[in-house]
């Protein structure tokens, strides 16, 4: 059926890709559930891998919810806010899934959840005013780890003319964008329109899964007069990747290894949009993450709103994960990262916590030449010949181009019946050969 749907929307599909098993049957209809903050929060003070935020409060001070804890030094740099009110016990180190050990502020909530004085925006606020206030909003884009302000600035300098709100989740399990659009659809469309104005974009597109027909209809109704285009797209993985969104929606191509901004497009996730929307409505900086908690080892899967700094183990406990969980993943099952320590905490970059049953992995055998990796690669490169770069010391310009254009979707490894770690090998070769190419000779 889905293949037929894909075929019918032939003008809106890319070559390659795959419809992955859905795994959302149990969670898609459950509303987002707010998780109460625990006894202690370990708020990570680092949002990007290369940039730690300097604390602006001192230990054993008491803080209010939404109070700046660290960063925010220069305009638009990363900033960390207190998720709730309480006593800042000390500074420490904590493990995050995406950056390993980072500095953190240990916060002991007092349970009052008192918030710092904030100023919401009236709906008629001029775009300039919002733009000026945005650097101090502390909204972080997941995945890139850059602040929304910084993203808009680079979009402006690259003369980006289209804003795409990425409401697609084509990986199994993930339900965050779906739930946010279902529950906060009106706000989302309004925020998308505001964000389009603030960023000065000519077009604002909200891409949603075409499978949720009622949602598409509703969003279209809401968006009728707002100038936001609601575009349903097939659920084929990795349609959610910015590069393929741009290719399918706008027929623009990105240079190998480039980003969406280079093609004049700004792609923002639904979660970031929701944070922007909340900031516009209440003036509060985002201090929670909406996470899909699911996976074979979870008894109560669902979509949870969790304060940043909550231990992942607590999230799993809430979702009633079984005790002997072996493989906890932050992010989608194809692009996520293994949570290496059980004392890791939720950070800005987490979009899902999946407790998967570790699949038995028989050892790799030689390539059986099925050609599936080539057929399913969304960017049309040839993974099975790129693995042969592993043992080589040089690669041709063509191969380097292929390495750079790989978008790390992981589909090649996913389909390979010979169990070859194709995507990992390509990522390794790319790191090896790109760094070599950048060394001046």
């Amino acid at each position, binding site marked *: 059926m889905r293949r037929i749907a894909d075929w019918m929307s032939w003008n809106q599909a890319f070559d390659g890709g795959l419809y992955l098993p859905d795994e959302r049957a149990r969670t898609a209809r459950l509303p987002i559930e707010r998780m109460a903050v625990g006894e202690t929060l370990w708020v990570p003070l680092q949002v990007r891998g290369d940039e730690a935020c300097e604390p602006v409060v001192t230990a054993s001070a008491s803080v209010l919810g939404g109070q700046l804890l660290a960063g925010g030094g220069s305009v638009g740099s990363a900033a960390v806010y207190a998720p709730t009110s309480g006593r800042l016990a000390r500074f420490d180190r904590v493990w995050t899934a995406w950056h*390993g050990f980072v500095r953190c502020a240990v916060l002991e909530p007092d349970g009052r959840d008192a918030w710092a004085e904030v100023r919401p925006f009236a709906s008629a606020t001029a775009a300039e005013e919002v733009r000026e206030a945005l650097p101090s909003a502390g909204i972080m884009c997941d995945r890139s780890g850059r602040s929304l302000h910084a993203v808009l600035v680079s979009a402006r300098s690259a003369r980006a003319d289209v804003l795409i709100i990425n409401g697609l989740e084509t990986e199994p399990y993930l339900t965050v964008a779906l739930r946010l659009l279902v529950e906060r659809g009106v706000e989302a469309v309004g925020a998308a329109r505001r964000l389009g104005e603030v960023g000065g974009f000519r077009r604002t597109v909200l891409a949603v899964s075409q499978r949720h027909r009622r949602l598409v209809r509703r969003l279209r109704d809401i968006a009728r007069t707002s100038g936001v285009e609601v575009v349903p797209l097939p659920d084929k993985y990795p349609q959610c990747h*910015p*590069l393929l969104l741009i290719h399918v929606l706008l027929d623009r191509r990105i240079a190998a290894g480039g980003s969406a901004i280079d093609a004049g497009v700004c792609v923002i996730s639904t979660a970031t949009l929701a944070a922007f929307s909340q900031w516009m409505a209440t003036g509060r900086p985002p201090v929670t993450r909406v996470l899909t908690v699911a996976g074979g080892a979870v008894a109560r899967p669902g979509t949870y709103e969790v304060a940043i700094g909550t231990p992942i183990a607590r999230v799993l406990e809430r979702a009633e994960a079984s005790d002997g969980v072996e493989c*906890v993943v932050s992010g989608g099952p194809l692009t996520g990262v293994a949570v290496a320590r059980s004392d890791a905490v939720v950070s800005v970059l987490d979009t899902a916590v999946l407790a998967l049953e570790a699949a038995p992995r028989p050892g790799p055998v030689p390539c059986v030449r099925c*050609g599936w990796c080539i057929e399913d690669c969304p960017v*049309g490169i040839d993974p099975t010949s790129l693995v042969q770069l592993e043992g080589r010391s040089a690669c041709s310009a063509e191969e380097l*181009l292929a390495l750079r254009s790989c978008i790390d979707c992981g589909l090649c490894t*996913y389909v390979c019946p010979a169990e070859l770690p194709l995507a990992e090998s390509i990522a390794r070769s790319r790191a090896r050969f790109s760094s070599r190419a950048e060394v001046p000779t």
Partner: protein
Amino acid sequence: MTGNAASAVETRNPRGWGWRMPGAPFVRSGQSHAQILAAWTMATMIVALAGIVLYGLSAAQVIAVAALTALATEASLSALAMRQVPGGLMHALVTGVLLGLTLPPTAPWFVAAAGGFLAILVAKWMFGGFGHHLWHPAVAGRVIVQFLFAQHLSFSQGLVQTPILAPGHLLVGQISAAVSIPAESYQGWSNTPLEDSPRAEAFLLERPVQVLRRMASGSLDVGFAEPWTTLLRDYLPPWKDTVLGTVPGGVGESCTIALVVVGMYLIYRGHLRWQVPVCVLASAALTAAILPVAVPHSSGALRMQWLPALVVEDKVPVGAAYVLYHVTAGQLMLCAFLLAGDMLAGPLTVRGQRYFAVGVGVIAMLMRLYGVLEGECYWAILIMNTFVPAIDRRTRRRPLAVEPAA
């Protein structure tokens, strides 16, 4: 829990989407090479079973000997080389059974044994083993024994009759107890009585492929009045027989219906691309439909009949029937569904496989019409296998990304 931050930093995409760590993707499609091999084994076994029903226990002997030698050769070679590839034995089993399917049921045991041995040793291991060979091992083995044991293989001796079990003797009959039936008096498999020789359990007939080859070369005495009608009426068995497989031929070559069924199964499982059999059969049919055949002229000389598919005699489209016979007469179906679609010896991309399949169909038909070598479809596969690296080079997919501006 696995993984560590150090390797995450090492493998991260400097510009792109996120960070990756060895480990992602954390889910797999669940299609493993073991499953693929199991499906192929099952498919070949079903066709082998059909062959055993049609040709009796001699066919079982051919298959068993070929399969067991292939297995033993693989086991001893991998022990000798101290290199165990998971699935290697299974692959050897499939290779052995496929080889057995290409041999005539009358083949002596040592021919099957030599084929199984040489298929694994020469075609598989001398090229580096599982996943590295250029030629399809089973096909290569069959072609080698065709040269080595020409005198033992009936098909190598031109005009001969080969057996098929008669009705009522399927599965348990002996193909050695066969009576020769003149082509003109053969009324089709189910309508021809065996009563004149009570001990007989099988017919001896000319293989349909052989008849078609003789027709193409003009050595069939079909007269000049209505040569095509004569061909169909006097020399070829009813078309239904070539579909059911109740015609003489190799163990797995004749039973069209079994081959189509297992082919559909493999396509359904996603282990065979439908483009391969479709392209092989379509290109072969098209070639047979266009290329000329020598038919007698009223002057007694031969004339070349181009576009035989369009011939109509007495308001009957005999030409079209002739093309249909070419498709189902034997070998071609086995090649299209089980041999040409082999993953290891075929091109990687769908586009490449289309070229490959068209090549197989056209070469097979050219060799059948104008060649002298037996086993034309097998030769076609070997020839196209040789071109697989070149096809792969020329059928790369076009990358989505463009070259970054310098």
